[in-house]
């Protein structure tokens, strides 16, 4: 027993090495889910969004539900009017925007355009966004006469529901945002195709 401490420290060192060997270091990559040391009420029997629902009422097993047929979510644009559909009462596309166009709307449109449209249509609307390098074909150019002449309502409808190869963006852009993007598409067109005479006199005087 004279060597008590020598034995002790040997076992101690082995134990420390063993623990570090098994438990690893902080931040090391692991496929295993986090250990919950005191899992008191960490996981409660309630449904969180986009998780699996083992619940008899939800046959498809999804915790996030689609609206029940015949119902609408609060705040969703469900009325069939020009603002929500881009169509006039007779079903034809609206010619002009049913919202007040001001600098705030255009800026919002610019921001949303940059997020959702620019990847394909390009920052300037030339149809040469980054995805075209990877095989996106036939991306519309906003300076084409066809789109310059297109009514605001038809552009709105294309954003909402997609067209040809383009998918729908109605889930990402609510009606107000869609009109904001339409206003910014018009800005991109004017920036390329506008004439000097169209600039208000007061502003033109400040340009060189």
């Amino acid at each position, binding site marked *: *027993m*004279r060597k*008590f*401490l020598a034995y*002790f*420290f040997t076992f*101690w060192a082995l134990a*420390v090495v063993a*623990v570090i060997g098994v*438990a690893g270091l*902080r*931040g*090391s*990559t*692991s*496929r*295993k*889910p*986090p*250990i*919950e*040391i005191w899992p008191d*009420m*960490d*996981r*409660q029997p*309630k449904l*969180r*969004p*986009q*998780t*699996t629902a083992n619940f008899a009422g939800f046959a*498809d097993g*999804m915790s996030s539900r689609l609206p029940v047929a015949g119902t609408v979510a609060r705040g969703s644009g469900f009325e069939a009017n020009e603002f929500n559909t881009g169509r006039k009462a007779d079903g034809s596309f609206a010619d002009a925007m049913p919202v007040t166009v001001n600098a705030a709307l255009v800026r919002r449109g610019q*921001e949303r355009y*940059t*997020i*959702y449209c620019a*990847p*394909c249509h390009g920052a300037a609307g030339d149809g040469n966004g*980054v*995805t075209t390098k*990877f*095989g*996106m*074909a036939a991306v519309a150019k906003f300076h084409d006469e066809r789109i310059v002449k297109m009514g605001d309502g038809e552009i709105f409808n294309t954003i909402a529901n997609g067209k040809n*190869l*383009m*998918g*729908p963006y109605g*889930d*990402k852009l609510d009606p107000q945002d869609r009109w904001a993007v339409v206003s910014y598409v018009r800005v991109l067109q004017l920036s390329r195709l506008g004439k000097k005479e169209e600039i208000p006199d007061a502003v033109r005087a400040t340009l060189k």
Partner: protein
Amino acid sequence: MSDIFPKWTNKLPLMAGVAAAVLGVTALAGITYYFTPKYTRVGYQPKQPVAFSHAIHAGQIGLDCRYCHNGVEKSWFSNIPTAGTCMNCHSQVRKDSDKLQLVRDSYASGQSIPWVQIHKVPDYVYFNHSVHVNRGVSCVHCHGEIQKMDEVQHAKPLSMSFCLDCHRDPGAFVRPNELVTKLDWKNEGFDGKKAVHDWKVQPGQSCSTCHR
């Protein structure tokens, strides 16, 4: 008596004391090091059903986070995108790739892809994404440099003290609101303290701010 208790036993209490002290300090050190989300959560990198690379999509291609996580500004929850979002491009780009089979199946059937959730605060924590990203708190603070991760892993502890670091001094963390998804942004002269004052940011520190 020396036959029963040899002389070395005089040192026994001392040796036992040293051993107990060493064991105690080691145990404390071990608990401090391991019993924290810095160990339990950081580094968690589950295998995902689809080999989606944030490094390619958010880094190389430069898609805004919100292209896919489009609900983050409006909802407490930052959504996983629908398969339709993937198909906006992948109906044309690599449309026959085996790696995208699950995405195409999901798009056709409406059944979810079984993505594995990585960042999970306890169920008694009511974290709201929208209030953070609308007040200049970037994704990168809690999720790390996602745009560099091929496979996403848990980069930050998301412990209570992690939250409180920012709630106690938000001025050191906030950035201009339009730059929250610009993950590689460097602060060059932005006055966060002034922004916190101007935007009337009031990050609560009471229990009920996060626990209800």
